[in-house]
């Protein structure tokens, strides 16, 4: 497949604007996960579109915000922001009532911060310039957590590997982020159910046909990005279910998902 031709075909614009057919959309998502150039091209267009849409912003009447708040019924309750969790320490996040909603709100803040980069372009609009300043303050206050996650996900050196479910566990899914320079490996769980207390998931790198342990983990409660062991090489990644604290090799009958690492 010719990546350059694909990128120039209009599929990017079509996908971002929500005009692609279901089939084209699925294909695009798969290819964008595989090829960073395609994901980058997508981001470039998204930013151009964002700039244009912001340029024709129309402020709504003041009472609209209040009405929305009444509908969603939010009150000022504390929420804990997620942090990157090192698997050796296995920190269990404290639970608040309604944590799921608040954790979502917290991760929302992290991704709003990525909106900061869109604002760099909006010079002529004074209102947006003011918001830029507010954004920077917000960003600095959550800097440690946000910048780390964003750095990982937006870094061009970082390869995304889509872990796809096996016959045994067709819906199991996760993403691996592998930094080709530092060789760091991170894991984001997408769909992996909790296990019985005597079991744990284990991540493996397959190198020259041999499995190498990259760490045991439990699926986190909120959207943390897990740091796994580094690996210099990997032909593929695999996740299995093992007994808690497994020191042996992988139980291949319990293979949950696999993903091929793109060749460097």
């Amino acid at each position: 497949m010719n990546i350059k031709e694909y990128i120039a075909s209009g599929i990017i614009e079509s996908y971002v604007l929500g005009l692609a057919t279901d089939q084209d959309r699925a294909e695009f998502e798969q290819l964008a996960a595989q090829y960073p150039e395609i994901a980058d091209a997508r981001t470039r267009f998204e930013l151009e579109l964002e700039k244009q849409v912001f340029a024709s912003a129309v402020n709504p009447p003041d009472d609209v915000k209040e009405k929305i708040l009444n509908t969603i019924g939010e009150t000022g309750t504390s929420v804990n922001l997620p942090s990157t969790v090192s698997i050796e320490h296995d920190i269990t996040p404290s639970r608040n009532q309604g944590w799921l909603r608040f954790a979502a709100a917290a991760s929302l803040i992290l991704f709003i911060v990525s909106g900061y980069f869109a604002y760099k372009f909006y010079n002529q609009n004074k209102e947006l310039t003011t918001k830029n300043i507010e954004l920077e303050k917000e960003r600095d206050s959550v800097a440690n957590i946000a910048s780390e996650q964003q750095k990982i996900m937006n870094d061009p050196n970082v390869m995304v590997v889509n872990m796809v479910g096996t016959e045994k566990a067709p819906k199991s899914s996760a993403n691996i982020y592998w930094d080709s320079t530092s060789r760091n490996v991170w894991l984001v769980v997408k769909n992996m159910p909790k296990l019985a207390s005597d079991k744990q998931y284990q991540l493996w790198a397959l190198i020259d046909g041999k499995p190498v342990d990259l760490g045991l983990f439990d699926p986190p409660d909120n959207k943390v990005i897990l740091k796994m062991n580094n690996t210099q090489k990997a032909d593929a990644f695999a996740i299995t279910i093992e007994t808690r604290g497994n020191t042996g090799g992988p139980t291949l009958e319990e293979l949950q998902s696999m993903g091929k690492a793109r060749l460097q």
Partner: protein
Amino acid sequence: MLQQRSDTAFSYLYDNYSGALNGIINQIVPESETANDVLQEVFVNIWRKIESYDPTKGRLFTWMLNIARNASIDKIRSRSYRNNLKNQTLADNVNDPLNLQVIKPVYDNIGLRKIVSQLKEEQRILIELSYFQGYTHEEIAKVMSIPLGTVKTRIRSALIQLRTML
């Protein structure tokens, strides 16, 4: 770990994005009161569905923009909205099997819609129908009596052209 109020998260979202989303809603739903209703619906949906936003698939704003566009289209296609229109001024076009009204919009002087109106007619119609009125490729092919493949190719060319004008 930092503590953050969840209503601050909402405020942040609303304060920074409501204008932009409202802009696109107003380009699709011309009546400002109805547009405000749509904006409310949109933010409630965004807040409730935030967990389904997948950052590996694109930026947060793109996800929100598509929610806003879809909600606007649903509104203008809704029976109550159409009934209101009929009661006011517009007559049905009898040559129009899908009751599809490709009227030249009076609100095409702002934003994305303004840029689209500068495309050559053949391309303008396709983007108008697909983006601003939510017609599928199949529906467009049927109404315009052109092959489905042609609809898709022309839309792609139109978008490529549109991008140079952004």
